[in-house]
């Protein structure tokens, strides 16, 4: 089951650059939340703060509270545990290129010490089905490498890999922006199905995509969360003039 995410007064820096300023919001469980805003406004930084990836950069720093479910991820949990509970998918599909499809999906579990063949087989099959890739690869699981798949398939492989460790939250940073329209709509269908079991946060540059997949949408601008509300409100009647200017292309 997905869990809610509660962010209170989150601030983030790269060195002296103040990248996120006093971000406070509640992401409801089992729904998709889209984050939009111009390049460099802090969307990626924000999602990286949700799974403590931000701090893997030595110059980076964050303050504030992020609660995933009832756990404060900066105080009550280790980064390793957090990254298991919160999966992440990036813009460029990044499968392990030489590993087989099977090993790609099973990699997270193996890293966590799972060795039981039967369990691994089951998890690989379930994850690939959830990411809508199973039918396309089931006969080549151990024959083909991650790199041999198309870009859209690679992205679904990465989603399967993220789902294999049974996370509660799935963070997606522009997961479809390198994909063709057909692969993109597959990813969107997937998001629609995954919402039942996971909480999804998706960064996207495509506003129609946000409108299609997300219940709630947040608009970031220069490190601030300008507006966060239900998607249909954002796209029909945003409260803030800056949001309206951005989504109607009157920006800049």
């Amino acid at each position, binding site marked *: 089951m997905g869990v809610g995410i509660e962010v209170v007064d989150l601030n983030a820096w790269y060195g002296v650059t103040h990248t996120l300023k006093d971000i406070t919001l509640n992401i409801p469980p089992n729904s998709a939340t889209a984050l939009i805003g111009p390049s460099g406004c802090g969307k990626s930084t924000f999602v990286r703060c949700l799974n403590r990836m931000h701090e893997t950069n030595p110059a980076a720093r964050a303050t504030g509270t992020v609660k995933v479910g009832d756990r404060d991820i900066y105080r009550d949990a280790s980064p390793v545990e957090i990254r298991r509970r919160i999966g992440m998918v990036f813009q460029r599909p990044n499968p392990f290129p030489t590993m087989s499809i099977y090993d790609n999906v099973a990699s997270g579990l193996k890293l966590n010490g799972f060795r039981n063949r039967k369990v691994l087989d089951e998890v690989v099959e379930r994850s690939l089905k959830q990411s809508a890739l199973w039918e396309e690869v089931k006969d080549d699981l151990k024959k083909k490498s991650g790199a041999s798949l198309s870009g859209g398939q690679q992205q679904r492989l990465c989603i399967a890999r993220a789902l294999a460790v049974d996370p509660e939250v799935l963070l997606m940073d522009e997961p479809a922006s390198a994909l063709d329209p057909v692969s993109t709509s597959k990813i969107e269908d997937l998001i629609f199905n995954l919402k039942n079991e996971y909480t999804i946060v998706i960064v996207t540059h495509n*506003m*129609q995509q946000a*409108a299609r997949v997300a219940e709630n949408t947040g608009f970031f601008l220069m490190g601030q969360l300008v507006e966060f509300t239900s998607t249909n409100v*954002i*796209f*029909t*009647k*945003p409260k803030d003039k800056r*949001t*309206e200017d951005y*989504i*109607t*292309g*009157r*920006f*800049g």
Partner: protein
Amino acid sequence: MRVKFHKNLDELKERLLVMAGLAEQAVQRSIEAYRTRDLSLCDLVFQSEPAINRFEREVDQMALDLLAMEQPMAVDLRFLYAVLRINADLERVGDQAVNIAARVQEMTAQASAELPVDIPKLANLSSAMVRKSLQSLIEANSEMAHSVLAMDDEVDAMNSDAFHAITELVQRKPDLAPQALNALIIARNLERVGDHATNIAEDVIFWVEGADVRHSSDSRSEKRDVEETS
């Protein structure tokens, strides 16, 4: 910046306003025909109908193209939605002018009579509503649009007075029934013109404020809904 798209929106608005001009002019002419019994004015009204219909299709197509190609959001989406609705209302304003002109044609064949309904006054009021609703569209002025809504009650009251006065007249002087009923129908057509102006004003408010003021608790909107289907 979506320069081309926003230029297209401006062009669409201009097109809609040209059509609005035609519809407004048709109403003016039909009323002038009533006042003067000048049948050539009726002909002009009839002739303008195909042009208004053509504009309606053209504006619809432009708006649909922009919806499909530009995937508008927020204020732009509300604008296109409002344009589509206003377009339909303007076409029907044109229809009302045609209805009035047809009544006037009939009336010129009938003996003239003193009728207890001030058509020119009613016409002034409903035309003013149309003009003001269009001005609110031009200026994106929702305050002005709200003032149109307030005018509708007066038009409704005048129309209902006309109904009672004509009913009474027809009972007293049955031989005047043909003229009297034509005048009553014209009053009703003008009341409908006011209703369309009200719709236009509501769409302007939706566009500018994002607020749906239709079917708010006042009797005006509810009544309109019933009439719409009659």
